[in-house]
């Protein structure tokens, strides 16, 4: 039997709504994954420590506030410091020119606002499969 994929969907920072994050969480669930949802206004430490405790395969971070270039590197460095091995995805409103910097910081892929749900789900599944 395949191991069940676990994902954390997290919302750092000051974003005031989480409709998009919830839609993604439901898509993961409908694809048979277990999704730990954090709710709004999480600090990078809460997210990284949570991802370690939940031993998720993938951490999907949704950011609309524009603070992605600060928050994501902080999340990833805390995560690695605490022994977390999960892969990190980013979604939300992220300008094209910021993407290379995020990939550099260790984000596996950035999904912009127009991304299809099945593309996110498929990519996540592939990411876990390739990780072994």
């Amino acid at each position, binding site marked *: 039997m395949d191991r*069940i994929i676990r994902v954390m969907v997290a919302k750092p920072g000051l974003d005031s709504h989480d409709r998009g994050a919830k839609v993604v969480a439901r898509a993961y669930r409908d694809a048979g*994954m*277990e999704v730990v949802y*954090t709710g709004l206004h999480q600090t990078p430490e809460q997210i990284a420590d949570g991802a370690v405790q939940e*031993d998720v395969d993938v951490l999907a971070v949704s950011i609309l506030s524009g603070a992605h270039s600060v928050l994501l590197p902080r999340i990833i460095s805390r995560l690695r410091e605490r022994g977390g091995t999960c892969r990190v995805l980013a979604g939300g409103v992220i300008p094209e020119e910021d993407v290379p910097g995020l990939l550099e910081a260790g984000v596996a892929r950035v999904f912009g606002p127009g991304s299809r749900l099945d593309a996110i789900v498929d990519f996540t599944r592939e990411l876990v499969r390739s990780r072994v």
Partner: protein
Amino acid sequence: MELVSRLLAGDAAALARAITLVECDPPSPRDLLAAIYPYAGKARVVGITGPPGVGKSTLVDQLATAFRQTHAEVGVLAVDPSSPFTGGAILGDRVRMVRSSADPGIFIRSLATRGQLGGLSQATANAIRLMDAAGRGLILVETVGAGQAEVDIMNHAHTVLVVLAPGLGDDVQAIKAGILEIGHVFAVNKADRDGADRTSSELEAMLEMAPDRAAGGWRPPVVRTVARDGRGIPELVQKLDEHWDRRQPELGAWQRRQAAAELAELVGAMARSRLQDWAVKSGRWEEVLDAIVGRRLDPQRGAETLVSHYLNCRPGEDQGSKTGGRIGRRKDA
């Protein structure tokens, strides 16, 4: 195993990975559970159950934070149902555990029920054991009091807190009887809402009628709480502590009962699967089945035939490989 030594040293990533491993059915490395077993058995376990949406997670957040004043390391296990259609799950209890998730002294793990019937209780027991061995001195376990499997989990708790709230649309009487019977302490949460008085007095009246439970004639107290702002939490902690203190004299007997129940469960499952494997492989299963279907043998005698054949034949077949091998291995370990 490196994982074991890291876990015993309290490393969060090691504990988290170990829980993932034992969460599979059957738990993959049996050696892992064997290795940590001697180090478990120290933690105090509080179960929190009740109908959906009454504020269990919000209350757990408050309790975990409050218990941190007396316990350096607190663990939280939050169990949520898996979707019967996709097998997936949204585990949303963390949303309400804002303070606890900001406290590095509190380790929160969400578990999905994964449609395991008896297995859920075993998986949770194993997760509790790992947290315990990793030094979490107080462990809070949240489940929705929905079905038997969730209620069974509460057998692993020293104290069971049942949470209710006013305005659930039904009377206390309508709430599953099973859930009220397992409670040692009751919280009527959302006491800031209309109807909390009525819910509390109905509950108290029902508990009056119930016979004293456990040794020492413990009468389950009812505490009103507002988990959202923390009102009633010190009183609730006090009642939980009183129950824990009251349990001390019979804790040894309780642990023995727990161990007996678990052993009986495991022996039953193991014996059944070994016997069935043997019966199928040796062809006797089909033989007996034919006889039953042909009305030459009734099911009861059919089962007896298989069991006694198994007990008689087995020694010559696999003594060396199973019984002997295992005992030998134990000694070197």
